[in-house]
C-alpha cells in the first residue's frame, strides 16, 4: 500500500470521528505547548539575568559569605558560616591596592510608613559608590553619600514603586517616612528600572549601610560589592582580597569571591536546573497526551475489528494493518504537535506582550525537541494498538459484531 494512500486512509478515519480526534490531539497540543511555553519562560529568565549581570561590567567582584564549591553548587547550612562584616569591607577598601571601591551591602525587609500608608519592602544598605557600580540612575534628588554613611544619617532613596504606593504624587524630597522604629528623610527617588523575573526592582529603599546595621541590628553583610581599578586587574584583585580575608578569618576560606563570569556561570547552573524542571513538568503532560492517544487507538482498533477482518480477507498483510493504525496515531500526534507549537509560541509571545515581568524567550531547540518528541510519542503509544490490530485473526475479526 503506497504512502499517500496510507495517509489518506488514516486521515479519512480520523475525520470520521472529528471531535474525538480533536480531543485526543488536545492532550498533545497542551503538552507540546507547555514544553515550549515553560522552556521559553526559563530561557527568558536566563536572558534577563545574563543581561543584568552583563551590565554590571567585567571589573566587578562580589564577596559573599560561605564557600561555593568549584562545581558551582552552593553549600547551604552545612557548617556555621562566618559572617562578613562592615569593618572587613572598610579594611579591604583601605588595604587592597587593586580595588577602587568596596561597598558593604546589607539586605533586609521592613515596613515603610508615610502618613498612614505603608508597604513591606526591601531595604538595602549601601554606600555612595554602589549606584555607580550597579549602574543605577537617580530620578530626582541625590543618592546616598559617603557623609550620610559616616554620620549614620537616617536618609533614604526610594524606588519608584515604593514612592507611588506610599506617597502618590506628593513632593517626596524632604518628606519624613518611618522605617522600622526610626524616621528617615527622603533625599532621592530612583529612575524607573522596571520588572525583572517577576521581581519589581523598583520596589526597594536604599539607606546608608551604617543605618541599616542599626535597623536590622547586625553587622553581617549580604555581600561586599567591589569595583576593581581595571578589568586587567580582576584576577590580581581577587587574590589580594582572598589573602586579606583569609587572614582575618583564622586562615579559613569561608567566603566566595565571584567575578562577573562566575556569577553568570553560577546563575547559569541554577537556571539550567530551573529550565530542566519546567521542561520535565511539561514532558509529563506530553506523556499523558500520549497515553490519551493510545487509549483512543485501542478503542478505534476494537471498533474497527470487522474492518480489519475485511481488509485482511482481501489481502492486507499484518504490516499493512500495522502501518495503517500507526499512521493514524502519528498523524494525531504530529497534528497535535503542530497545534502545540502554534499554541506555545502564541502563549509565550502573548505573555511577553501582556506582562513585562515575564520576559519569555522562545528557543528553536525547544520547539524542535517538543515537536520531535510528540512524533515519537505517536509512534511509541501507537505501536501497541497498531500491533494488536495487525495480529487479529481474519476469521475472528470477520465474525466480530
Amino acid at each position, binding site marked *: 500500500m503506497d504512502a499517500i494512500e496510507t495517509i489518506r486512509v488514516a486521515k479519512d478515519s480520523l475525520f470520521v470521528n472529528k471531535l474525538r480526534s480533536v480531543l485526543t490531539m488536545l492532550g498533545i497540543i497542551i503538552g507540546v505547548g507547555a514544553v515550549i511555553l515553560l522552556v521559553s519562560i526559563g530561557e527568558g529568565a536566563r536572558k534577563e539575568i545574563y543581561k543584568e549581570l552583563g551590565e554590571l561590567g567585567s571589573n566587578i567582584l562580589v564577596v559573599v559569605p560561605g564557600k561555593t564549591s568549584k562545581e558551582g553548587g552552593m553549600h547551604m547550612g552545612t557548617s556555621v558560616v562566618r559572617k562578613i562584616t562592615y569593618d572587613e569591607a572598610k579594611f579591604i577598601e583601605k588595604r587592597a591596592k587593586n580595588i577602587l571601591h568596596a561597598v558593604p551591602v546589607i539586605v533586609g525587609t521592613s515596613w515603610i510608613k508615610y502618613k498612614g500608608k505603608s508597604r513591606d519592602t526591601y531595604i538595602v544598605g549601601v554606600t555612595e559608590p554602589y549606584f555607580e557600580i550597579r549602574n543605577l540612575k537617580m530620578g530626582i534628588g541625590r543618592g546616598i553619600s559617603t557623609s550620610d554613611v559616616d554620620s549614620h544619617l537616617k536618609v533614604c532613596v526610594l524606588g519608584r514603586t515604593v514612592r507611588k504606593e506610599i506617597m502618590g504624587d506628593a513632593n517626596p524630597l524632604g518628606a519624613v517616612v518611618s522605617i522600622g522604629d526610626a524616621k528617615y528623610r527622603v533625599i532621592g527617588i530612583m529612575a524607573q528600572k522596571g520588572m525583572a523575573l517577576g521581581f519589581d526592582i523598583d520596589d526597594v529603599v536604599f539607606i546608608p549601610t551604617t543605618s541599616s546595621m542599626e535597623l536590622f541590628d547586625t553587622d553581617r553583610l549580604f555581600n561586599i560589592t567591589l569595583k576593581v581599578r581595571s578589568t586587567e586587574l580582576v584576577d590580581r584583585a581577587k587574590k589580594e582580597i582572598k589573602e586579606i580575608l583569609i587572614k582575618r578569618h583564622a586562615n579559613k576560606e569561608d567566603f566566595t569571591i565571584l567575578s562577573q563570569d562566575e556569577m553568570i556561570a553560577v546563575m547559569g547552573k541554577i537556571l539550567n536546573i530551573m529550565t530542566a524542571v519546567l521542561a520535565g513538568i511539561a514532558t509529563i503532560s506530553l506523556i499523558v497526551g500520549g497515553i490519551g492517544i493510545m487509549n483512543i487507538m485501542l478503542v478505534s482498533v476494537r471498533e474497527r475489528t*470487522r*474492518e480489519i477482518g475485511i*481488509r485482511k480477507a482481501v489481502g492486507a498483510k499484518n504490516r499493512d494493518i500495522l502501518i495503517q493504525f500507526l499512521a493514524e496515531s502519528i498523524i494525531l500526534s504530529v497534528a497535535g504537535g503542530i497545534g502545540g507549537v502554534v499554541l506555545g509560541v502564541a502563549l509565550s509571545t502573548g505573555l511577553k506582550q501582556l506582562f513585562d515581568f515575564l520576559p519569555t524567550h522562545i528557543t528553536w531547540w525547544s520547539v524542535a525537541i517538543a515537536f520531535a518528541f510528540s512524533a515519537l510519542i505517536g509512534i511509541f503509544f501507537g505501536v501497541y494498538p497498531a500491533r494488536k490490530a495487525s495480529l487479529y485473526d481474519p476469521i475472528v475479526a470477520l465474525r466480530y459484531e
Partner: protein
Amino acid sequence: MVILSDITKSYILPGGEVEVLKGISLEIKRGEFISIMGTSGSGKSTLLNLIGCLDRPTSGKYLLDSIAINTLSGNELAEIRNKKIGFVFQSFNLIPRLSAIKNVELPLLYAGILTGERRDKAYEFLKKVGLSERGEHMPSELSGGEQQRVAIARALINNPAIILADEPTGNLDSKTGQEIIDIFKAIHREGSTIIMVTHEKYIAEQAERIITIKDGVCFGGCY
C-alpha cells in the same frame, strides 16, 4: 485446481475440542460452478474459509493451483487471498466508512496498484455489476442487493482464480437473490470458478455440481 485431502478442522472451546470438519477430501476443477449445501452448523463456512485461505486446517493437505497451502505463513496466505481469491459474504462486509468505489478498490490497494489505475478499474467493475452511477455512495445509502453487487465487484477486481460466496443471497429477498445468482452465472460463463455455500435448494441447483456436507464429512458431490 482445488484439491483437499483428508482435511480436519477442530476448535478448542472451554468445554474441550470440537471437531467441525472430520476428514474432507474433494477436488474442484478450473471453471466449475459449485454449490455447497448442508444444515446449519454442518461446517460449510468453515470449509469455505479453509478453501479461501482465511483459515488453516488442523490436519490434511490443501493444494490450490499446485501450491501447498498448509506450509504458508500468514502473510503468504494474505497474498494468496489477494491474488487468487474473491470473497462474497452473506452480510456483504463492505467497510461502512468507505464509498462503494473505494470498497471495490480495496484488493488493488493491497496489490500495490496506484490510485489512478485503481479508480479506473474499480469503475469498470462497478459498471460490470450495473452500479456505475453509485460509485460515490456509501454502503448505508445502498440497498442490500446493491451492496452485494459492490461486494461482487470487489471480489472480481483482482481477476481471482476462485470466487467464494458464503450464502450470498441469505440476506436478500428471493427476487434480488436471483439477480445475484444471475450475476454469478454470467461471470461463470466468462470462465470464473465459483464455489457458493447456500442452504436453499433452488439456488444450489443452479450450479453445475452440488457438494453436500453433513456433520463435518462429505455426503456427496465431492468428486
